[in-house]
């Protein structure tokens, strides 16, 4: 009896020591008690898949095919060379910001330019552009002082204010110089909304 409780006490101390309290940081995958259907044979978003040769679950369209809802890029348009598919459905002004080879000005007719559109633009601008260009667009974002080459990214000066809407759209889509493209994170509609908000910032700055 005495021995039993002595051993039990030692075992309890050892177990408590081994399992430790809840919430301790650890790096091995969590233990699964009954992993019955936890991992099914399906592809989850952004996850690898052993089914394909390159191991990637997210597939690109097979060469020569076009996903439903997208349009074939028209040959001979320079923008298409860089654009892949780009969330784009074609080469209209709405999708490219270009008329032929020139930046267009004004907004595509399909957009409804109302207060909600501008509010959306403001929200997206403050999420995506503010870190570099600053809240007012003056180029003094928090990140800009860390750049090895100080970037010239004042959006409300006379030079950028003179740019047509299509050019700003094109810059967001493809990047420019040191600025990378944001087509992967912003839908076409949101990009136009941001353009509208940038224009309103420029107007507020008197340009």
């Amino acid at each position, binding site marked *: *009896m005495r021995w*039993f*409780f002595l051993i*039990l006490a030692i*075992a*309890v101390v050892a*177990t*408590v020591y081994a*399992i430790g309290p*809840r*919430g*301790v*940081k*650890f*790096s*091995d*995958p*969590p*233990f*699964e*008690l009954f992993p019955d*259907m*936890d*991992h*099914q044979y*399906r592809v*989850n*978003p*952004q*996850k*690898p898949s052993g089914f394909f040769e*390159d191991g*990637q679950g997210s597939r690109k369209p097979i060469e020569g095919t076009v996903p439903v809802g997208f349009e074939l890029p028209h040959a001979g348009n320079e923008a298409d060379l860089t654009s892949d598919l780009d969330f784009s459905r074609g080469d209209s002004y709405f999708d490219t910001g270009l008329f032929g080879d020139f930046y267009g000005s004004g907004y595509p007719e399909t957009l409804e330019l109302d207060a909600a559109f501008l509010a959306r633009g403001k*929200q997206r601008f*403050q*999420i*995506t552009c503010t*870190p*570099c260009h600053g809240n007012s667009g003056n180029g003094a974002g*928090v*990140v800009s002082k*860390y*750049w*090895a*080459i100080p970037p010239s990214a004042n959006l409300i000066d006379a030079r950028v204010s003179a740019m047509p809407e299509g050019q700003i759209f094109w810059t967001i889509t493809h*990047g420019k110089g*040191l*600025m*990378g*493209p*944001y087509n*992967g*994170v*912003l839908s076409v509609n949101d990009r136009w909304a941001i353009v509208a908000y940038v224009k309103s910032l420029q107007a507020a700055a008197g340009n």
Partner: protein
Amino acid sequence: MGNIFPRWTNLLAIKVLLCAGALGTCVIAVAWYSWTPKYTRVGYMPQQPIPFDHSLHAGQLGMDCRYCHSFVEDSLHSNVPTAQVCWNCHGPGKVKSDSPKLEPLRQAMDENSENYTGKPIEWVQIHKVPDYAYFNHSVHVNRGVSCVECHGKVNEMPVVFHAEPMSMSWCLDCHRNPEKALRPLDQITNLDWTPDDLDQDDFYSYVSAQTGKSAEDLKKGDEGKEWGQDLIGSHLQMAWDVHPPQDCAACHR
């Protein structure tokens, strides 16, 4: 014939019961404590290919979660950013472009790098709902449930870890009392938000615009109640008509 059972056997049954009881209690106590997601998952902090620091990017630099997790409002899946998103800031001539910590990024993006593979960075997934349960980010985020309710204060974590158990009972605890979690929609990604940051008059006029009740009546109804999460949450729940599902088929579809 003498006594077959010696004297010491008198207490044997009781002793055995006592020992078995003590052993059983200990085993159950240990299992209770450690065979639950509160123990098995909370604190999971895997080694990531790049030591990416949320407390720097989201905390100190103040970047919005949606800069990187850009489709969390539109999709059931909250995406981990592509290498391009990092590259826009960490590319050549930009921020810390030759830091050794960013080697996997250069392998994914920099065609001039000797180890270029063009393969995506293999981030290790931390939070995972089993495949038989359905979870949707956009429903929660668009209904005023902030990231902090489910992921903890990510903006203060140098390395992200599993902060909540994410068990079924945990999901249901909130689905039964959603008012403990609801907040205005523009503060979803502001993890440091507290009810005191909210302007009371703005809030009442917002709720009255949503519900059609006058702001004065709402204020009168709340007299004597303390301004805080429960009050804000219950108003928002009414205003948005929030009814989180509790039937099995909602999550096990």
